[in-house]
């Protein structure tokens, strides 16, 4: 250790960035996938998978990301994980810009952020035993075998699997729920701070899903984790999240605290989504389809507001101007919506009046 570091030691890991510093800040993240075609293999079109997405994840919080399939939820996760390189945008992890000279390297980020995938089977190497799969990453990072094994056993016990029984099993010998527990243990093996759960419980049976969800809640408290929870299942997101972000065709349409989104949604898309949510109360049966048709192709998204083709309130202004993500006068903190109806003076005839905006 150089004398410089002795005099100016880096801040301890626990207080790095401080408690108020969001664990992850994502700004203007963009990813366009080129579509090639023709004889010369030129780029003929672009799929705007993630288009100018910004959000932050606070420490100890669960950020739920919801949306229909193809809205860019998983791409966002892979971009944060740096599994695909973003075209544009910055990532700030705990105050350190990712990949920046004075920030945190991608390799260092990957020790802090881990991911659990949807497919429990495909995300485990079929040739490695459960124990080897979990201890693989720590050992690649130089942890001695004995220590890695001890950590693996501890983790297996944490996720509710008996290590003596499961350490030497192969993935195909386990059930889906057990495999997803192993995947969670594997993700925790590097002792990350942020766990990205990409549809991690979606493929499980309802009863198993509930068990795994409870396990996730438990682990979050025990290891002081922060989650990014991606799902298309609104009930699950409501259960686990503190903060929710609704995505549509690569854009954030509404974001806010979970109660606000679920009790007082403003964006027509969110409202339609919530109406389509199956209820356990037969009296509240969904009788008509709140949302019909497929989302338009991200190859050629509609001009202005991307939701306007399926929106009941669409007007000319919606086709002409893209609605910005704004707070409304009566909304709580950290709430934003991208809809002309909630932007006074946007030109939408049903827009809220500017007066209340001033008052708010």
């Amino acid at each position, binding site marked *: 250790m150089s004398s410089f570091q002795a005099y100016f030691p880096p801040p301890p890991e626990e207080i790095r960035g401080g408690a108020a510093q969001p664990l992850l800040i994502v700004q203007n993240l963009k990813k366009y996938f080129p579509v090639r075609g023709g004889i010369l293999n030129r780029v003929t079109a672009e799929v705007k998978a993630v288009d100018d997405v910004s959000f932050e994840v606070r420490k100890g919080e669960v950020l739920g990301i919801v949306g229909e399939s193809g809205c860019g939820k998983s791409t966002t996760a892979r971009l944060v994980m740096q599994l695909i390189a973003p075209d544009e945008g910055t990532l700030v992890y705990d105050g350190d810009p990712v990949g920046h000279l004075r920030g945190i390297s991608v390799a260092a980020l990957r020790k802090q952020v881990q*991911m659990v995938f949807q497919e429990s089977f495909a995300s485990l190497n079929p040739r490695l035993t459960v124990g080897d799969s979990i201890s693989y990453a720590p050992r690649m990072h130089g942890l001695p075998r004995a220590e890695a094994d001890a950590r693996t056993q501890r983790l297996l016990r944490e996720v*509710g699997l008996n290590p*003596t029984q499961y350490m030497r099993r192969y993935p195909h010998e386990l059930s889906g729920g057990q495999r997803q527990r192993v995947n969670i243990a594997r993700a925790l093996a590097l002792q990350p701070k942020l766990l990205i759960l990409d549809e991690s419980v979606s493929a499980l049976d309802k009863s198993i899903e509930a068990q795994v969800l409870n396990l996730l809640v438990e682990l979050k408290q025990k290891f002081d984790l922060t989650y990014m929870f991606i799902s298309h299942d609104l009930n699950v997101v409501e259960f686990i999240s503190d903060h929710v972000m609704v995505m549509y065709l690569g854009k954030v349409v509404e974001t806010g605290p979970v109660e606000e989104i679920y009790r007082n949604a403003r964006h027509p898309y969110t409202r339609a989504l919530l109406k389509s949510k199956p209820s356990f109360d037969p009296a509240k049966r969904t009788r008509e389809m709140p949302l019909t048709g497929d989302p338009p192709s991200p190859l050629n998204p509609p001009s202005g507001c991307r939701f306007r083709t399926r929106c009941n309130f669409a007007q000319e202004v919606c086709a002409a101007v893209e609605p910005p993500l704004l707070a409304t006068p009566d909304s709580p903190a950290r709430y934003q919506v991208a809809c002309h109806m909630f932007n006074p003076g946007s030109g939408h005839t049903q827009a809220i009046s500017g007066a209340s905006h001033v008052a708010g």
Partner: protein
Amino acid sequence: MKEVNVTDVPALQSAAEAAVAASEPIGSDAGYWRNVWSRLKRDKVTMTVTAILFMIVMIAIFAPWVTFHDPYAGSVLRRLKPVGTPNHWLGTDETGRDLWSRIAHGGRLSLLSGVLPVGIALMIGGLLGVIAGYAGGRINTMIMRTMDVFYAFPSILLAIAICGMLGSGFTNAILALSIVFIPPLVRISESVTAQVRSLDFVDAAKASGTTTAQIIRHHILANVLGTILVYATSLISVSIVLSAGLSFLGLGAKPPQAEWGLMLNALRQAIYVQPLVAAIPGVMIFITSMCFNLMSDGFRSAMDIRLEQ
């Protein structure tokens, strides 16, 4: 660390999992290869065929000890004796050399010409294929399109062309065959690698900071090697037949070397005199290549514990 004994298993698990645990042996250590072996053992055809191959290989290796005549010493008096002649139980060839002795010694070259080209092609083709499959994009296009050029020629024609270019001889025949087998091996390894590479566990490894070399070594190779090896085994039989063909045409081994293809060519003229004797080298080629084929088939089904359940 406290040792977990079997009695506290139920406490650790939900009822559903305890039920699963009860029906399975605790800590089942049925490794993948042990699993494959137990499947193989039940497959009688594969076991028989493997035993026959083992015998042929042993005879070829220990040829001087299992034969009693010099494979090169002919005798004008003992030409083209039939099968079952005392002292020459497989008869003699057109120059009076003991056929059993020549078959046993010839097995060395013939087996070598089956295994060696495939081995060489496996190294080069497998490497290129894994690189192409893992890298994708431009590198993939470059490697695969180059291979397509080789694919345009029928394999025997390509081998003859290369052999003709390099000149005849056993070494050149092996080289020519190696080049012939590279494209199919590249294609197979490219496709399985691309398939495995797209699975989430590769992404998971990447996400935990594993280097590309480590990913290829531990995650890709472990999952593709079986498929590639099985395919390579099936090529051995093709290689034996092709090299026999090359020697038959006078492009491979040279007389008086003992090699099955060459022997078949030399005995061709005696087919009306001693049809049985003339057929023996051909029968050996047939049996050996058949055995390799059946063996690789058996291995494939035994190793077919699929990636997707």
